[in-house]
Every structure is written in C-alpha cells, then in structure tokens.
C-alpha cells in the first residue's frame, strides 16, 4: 500500500488538513505505520500535481485543507478494486534462510526452525494479548490490523511445522557417486541382507 492511497481514502471522508490527515492515518492503521508530517505534505503536493486532490484557501488559523477530486476518486476506486500483487511484497528472508541452512554444512536446521518458531509464537502471543484488550467497537480497525498480523504469524508457524515434518523425513543424498545404473539390482541386494 502507498501513503498516497491512504491519504486519498481519508480525504474521501471529507476535507482535512495535514495534521488531521496524519492523525487519521495513524488511527486507521492502528499506529503500526507512523508518518511524519513532512511525508504527509510531500505526498499531498504530489497528489495535487497529479490532479487527484485540490488545496483550498487557508483557514484563519493558517491551516490549508485539501479535498479529493473526481480523478482522485477514480484512482482510489481502482486501488480498492485491484488486488495487491504478491511480487510487490518484499523478500521472504526466512524461506531463503532455511533453504541455505539446509545446504550449509554444520547447520542444525531443526534448531533454526525452532528458534524462529519460538520467536514467531511469542509475537503471536503479544498480538493475541493486544486483541483481547481491544474490544471496544471503535477498536475494530485496529483489531483488523491485528488480525492480519496474527494470521501471518500463524501461517509462519504452520509453515515451520511443515518444514520440521519434512526435515524429519529428509534423508540427505549420500556422498559419493550415485550408483544409478545399479538401482534395480540394489533393491534385490538389500532384500538378501
């Protein structure tokens, strides 16, 4: 997601000036995405340049409100209608780390899995505790953000469980040349043992 679309969505509620936008943005993301006021004004000036918002006359207190334009509404509608691509999301460092652990000599992969599982489980405990404490109706946006993080943590633990099961069954390929041409004869030999 971009700050740009976040601000457009907030302006769809009605005109606001910079500090109001920053407070509303943090409120609706459960304060998981802190903004500084400079980012807000930089984004507003780009949105205005692109014709998606328009600035209104300053108030007596010297605050300049902004409102969304029709082009801004169309851009916002498109954003809501378009799924977020998986490839837009950053790295999966953990998956890469485990893949490397498996092929690096001397690494206890099950210990790597367990260390991550304990850390992720603890994060899930913290999220659950926060959600349990946030049961007012006005906490709903915040609870949804928490839910998203909880589902991600849960998925990661399940994936780690899956990795562990695969590791238990895993038989590393034997070192040395693979006796591929003897594969058929070998099973007979094993049967004789």
């Amino acid at each position, binding site marked *: 997601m971009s700050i740009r679309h976040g601000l457009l969505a907030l302006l769809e509620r009605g005109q606001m000036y910079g500090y109001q936008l920053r407070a509303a943005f*943090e409120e609706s993301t*459960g*304060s*998981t995405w*802190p903004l500084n006021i400079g980012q807000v004004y930089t984004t507003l000036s780009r949105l205005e340049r692109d014709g998606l918002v328009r600035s209104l006359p300053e108030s007596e207190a010297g605050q300049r409100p902004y409102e969304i334009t029709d082009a801004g509404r169309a851009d916002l509608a498109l954003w809501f209608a378009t799924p977020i691509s998986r490839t837009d999301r950053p790295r999966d460092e953990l998956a890469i780390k485990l893949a490397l652990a498996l092929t690096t000599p001397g690494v206890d992969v099950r210990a790597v899995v*367990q*260390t991550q*599982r*304990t850390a*992720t*489980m*603890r994060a*899930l*405990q*913290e*999220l*659950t*505790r*926060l959600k*349990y*404490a946030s049961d007012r109706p006005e906490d709903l946006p*915040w609870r949804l953000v928490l839910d998203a993080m*909880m589902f991600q*943590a*849960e998925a990661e*633990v*399940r994936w780690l*469980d899956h990795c*562990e*099961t695969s590791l238990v069954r895993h038989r590393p390929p034997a070192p040395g040349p693979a006796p591929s041409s003897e594969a058929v004869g070998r099973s007979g030999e094993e049967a004789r043992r």
Partner: protein
Amino acid sequence: MSALSGTTPAAPDPAATGAATPVDPPADAVLDLRDVHRTHGSGPAAVHALRGVSLVVRPGELVAVMGPSGSGKSTLLTLAGGLDSPTAGEVYVEGQPLHALHRRDLARLRRRRIGYIFQNLNLIGGLTAVENVALPLELDGAGVRRARRLAQDALTEVGLMELGDRFPDQLSGGQQQRVAIARALVGERRLVLADEPTGALDSQTGEAVLRLLRRRVDEGAAAVLVTHEARHAGWADRVVFLRDGVTVDSTAPLAGVEALLAGTGR
C-alpha cells in the same frame, strides 16, 4: 533424583496432606512437574512418551504445550491431572504430591480442584446438560440444589443458559463442547487442563472458548492447554515446545498490555 511413583503409599489423613509440602515445591505453584518420565511397555518395545519434563504453572498463568504428534503433550496432561502415574519423577498439585496421596484423596483432589477439557468429551448421554455439569459437585457431596445452581451459572458463562435441560444428543457438537467446558470450570477449580478444547468448534466459537479459559485464568486459576494450533497457543502466557518427550524450548514472559500498546504508539 526421581523417586519411583507408588513406592510411598503412606495413606495420610487429609489434614496432614494439606499441610505437608515435602521437598520445597515453589510455594505458589498450582502445578509442579519434576523431571517426569513416562514409559509405556518395556524392553526393546518400550515407548518413551516423556523423558524428563519439568514444568511449573502458577496462579494466573496459562501455559500452552505445543509439539508434533507423538511428542508427549497429551501424556503430560494426563500425568498433570492424576489420571496416569509417571514412571519416574513427581507431580505436585497445589503442593500435594500425587504419588503419595491415597486413592480416595487423589479422587477428591481431581473432582474439586482440577477441571478437564479433553478431545473426547465424555458427556453422559442419560443426563441433561445441567446434570452433566453438576455431576462432579454432587459426587463431591454438594447438595443437589447448590450443585444445580452452580452448574447453571457455569452454563450461563459459556452462553448456554437456555439449554440446560437438553440431553447431549439434542445439542450440536459445538454446544456439547461448551457443556464439557462448563463442567471443567464449575465450582472452585484451580487447575484447568485442556487438550485441543476447540476441536469441534468453528473459529468464532473456538475463540469464545479461549476467552473463557483466559478469563478464568485471569481470575486466579492455572491452566495447561495442549494444542497444535498456533492461534490457540497465542492466548497463553508461556508456550512450551515438546519434541520426542523432552522440552526443546519455551517462549519468554510477555510484557503487560500497557507496555505492548506503548510499543505500538497507541
């Protein structure tokens, strides 16, 4: 260090049992497992379900036990509840050594102080929901009216106040699960032992059950929750990981809600 269970069947009188606290268990521990082993069978066919597990659970603490199938988590729960005896090691509930209790005293401790929520619900088909919940209290000598009133309170707590007169086969799977939970929470249970307690429930009802468990723990009970669902273990204060009958790791204690909220800037 681990005394064999059943080697000290000194039948203590109940008053002495309450006062006796041998080998300094943590003063406030509701559950204290000490280097517990459980082996099924013997010789080459022996299965080592638990191989030296220690665990202390204090009042106000919900501990989740996670691990793959066969890791020993359900065995741990049956030992904690006095439903089975360790091959070696000791189990204390509220300071009482289970191995040293007379059968009668152990049965009373189980009825009064320990609540069980197991995968197999064990509801009695010929009894209504409220009778099922009241049963442990009545077995313990409570008057029928008092037992029924407490049972009705427990059913209300799990959202089944209207359905106390139904028989188990007139209830949905989720409702039966909640009756089993009411039975585990009824009265003054200090130790609640749950094995996949949300098995038959959809996620919303499952979460409601865990909220109930959490609330009871926040009111001062101690609980052990065996689960393979990370989402459920998330409700715990501490998560212990078992593998092949030993503890391999556990999560560090959590900060309070205020500290967590401060961390998010709220």
